[in-house]
């Protein structure tokens, strides 16, 4: 490893979404030497992903500017894959390897969509809801295409509104949650006026698009790619011809890195104290890995983590009130969009659950644990390392993921070899 690929920071932030940007900006403004690393090509994470033909939102632009003027050293297109010793992380770029040394660390790795297997879900053009949105923002032409949006969570509405604005024909939005749950959610939103106005705006943008509650996809059909979707619409079966199915079942946090670092995880989320510090001293966590709560909560948690990591605990405490308010919204989300048990029966015996290794549901049913399934079927042993099938099997079979081992993402042999040499 050559020396110019080594960098030292007082505060290192992993993840450049809202939580990471806020943490990095606040820590740097407090006088710390700060680095921020992200796998993507630019800052903003998934929520502030900028479209080729679009501009940054006002809030995203404000945080980008703060990062710039606070002199945060940013590094994009870098995947952290190992911690060879305490206080050191290794990250791989397209053609390089870098060693990142830190005093304090902020983990802001965000979340991904939860996918549930159903017959046909492996067909090309069946994508995540956020997945299709990201592809369209990256240039995929969608004008005139027929799209079914399905799954659960507030993301479905945001995605449908975005795709429609880009010229897509949204055939239907299928939300698995019941109307009663959603009505309760709406009624509880009075504490969050910003969310109410966002909701009303989305409703306006989606006028005349059918929004079906108690509804979910049963099967996707097609030869080389998707041609139609069968849905269960409030108890009735319906076939809808379409070009794309945008389907995501809310979000799951990216906790692979905190797991690797040994941070305590409970109920799937990284455990943190008031100052966003994990069970390991000097390692902080902010945003979705501590609980799915959306961008406002991510921003306030990021600010607290950044200040605390820079030794400004007193200032961090002044943000506790704001965090408490936004945490209420996170609990509402959890309650409203909990997955209904019927979704466990969507897979048939032949339905592939692990897409990397093509392991069908019938082979998984024979096993009692994630570990046994991995050993005997190779489920979760492919390149995604269980990031897609892990949360699915957790829901389907109530299996719990076990420990993670480095590399947490596929890394090049040269990267691993130079790691061995430096040891």
């Amino acid at each position, binding site marked *: 490893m050559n020396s110019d690929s080594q960098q030292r920071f007082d505060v290192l932030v992993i993840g450049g979404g809202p939580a990471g940007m806020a943490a990095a900006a606040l820590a740097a403004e407090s006088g710390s030497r700060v680095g921020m690393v992200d796998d993507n090509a630019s800052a903003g994470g998934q929520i502030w992903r900028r479209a080729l033909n679009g501009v940054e939102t006002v809030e995203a632009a404000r945080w980008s500017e703060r990062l710039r003027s606070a002199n945060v050293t940013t590094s994009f297109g870098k995947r952290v894959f190992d911690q060879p010793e305490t206080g050191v992380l290794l990250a791989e770029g397209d053609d390089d390897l870098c060693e990142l040394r830190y005093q304090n660390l902020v983990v802001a790795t965000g979340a991904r969509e939860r996918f549930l297997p159903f017959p046909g879900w492996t067909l090309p053009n069946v994508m*995540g809801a956020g997945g299709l949105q990201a592809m369209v923002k990256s240039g995929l032409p969608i004008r005139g295409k027929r799209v079914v949006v399905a799954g659960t969570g507030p993301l479905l509405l945001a995605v449908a509104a975005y795709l429609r604005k880009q010229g897509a024909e949204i055939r239907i939005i299928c939300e698995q949650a019941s109307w009663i749950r959603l009505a309760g959610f709406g009624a509880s939103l009075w504490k969050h006026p910003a969310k109410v106005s966002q909701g009303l705006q989305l409703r306006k943008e989606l006028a005349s698009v059918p929004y079906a509650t108690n509804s979910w996809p049963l099967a996707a059909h097609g030869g080389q790619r998707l041609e139609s979707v069968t849905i269960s619409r409030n108890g009735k079966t319906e076939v809808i011809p379409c070009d794309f199915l945008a389907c995501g079942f809310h979000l799951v946090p990216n906790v692979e890195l905190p797991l690797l670092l040994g941070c305590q995880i409970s109920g799937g989320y990284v455990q943190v104290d008031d100052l966003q510090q994990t069970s390991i001293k000097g390692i902080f966590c902010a945003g979705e890995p501590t609980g799915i709560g959306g961008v406002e909560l991510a921003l306030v948690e990021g600010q607290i983590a950044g200040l605390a990591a820079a030794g400004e605990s007193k200032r961090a405490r002044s943000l506790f009130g704001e965090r408490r308010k936004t945490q209420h919204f996170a609990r509402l989300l959890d309650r409203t969009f909990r997955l209904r048990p019927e979704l466990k029966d969507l897979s048939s015996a032949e339905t592939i659950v692990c897409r990397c290794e093509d392991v069908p549901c019938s082979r998984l049913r024979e096993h009692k644990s994630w570990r046994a399934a991995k050993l005997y079927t190779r489920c979760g042993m492919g390149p995604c390392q269980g990031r897609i099938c892990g949360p699915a099997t957790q829901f389907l079979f109530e299996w719990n993921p076990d420990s993670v081992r480095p590399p947490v993402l596929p890394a090049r042999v040269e990267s691993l070899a130079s790691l061995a040499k430096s040891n």
Partner: protein
Amino acid sequence: MSTPNLAARDVTLSVNGARVSVPLGATVAVAVAMAGQACRVSVSGEPRGALCGMGICFECRVSINGKRHCRSCQIVCEPGMEVETDE
């Protein structure tokens, strides 16, 4: 004031030998989709395309300029790139 030349902002690359033009800044996953191709063939022979769109699922992997296992949704198209699917 001249009108912007949209064609000049396109990037041309090849997918399985066929020329594809994509908007400047588009990812390789987009180019593969615009070429009407799937990204890869699964271990049991199914065609697969991008799923997560954010570099997590590895379903969109292709060969780019001979380098295998590239996540096409994370890589921006460059002029003259040679992309091969079905690796």
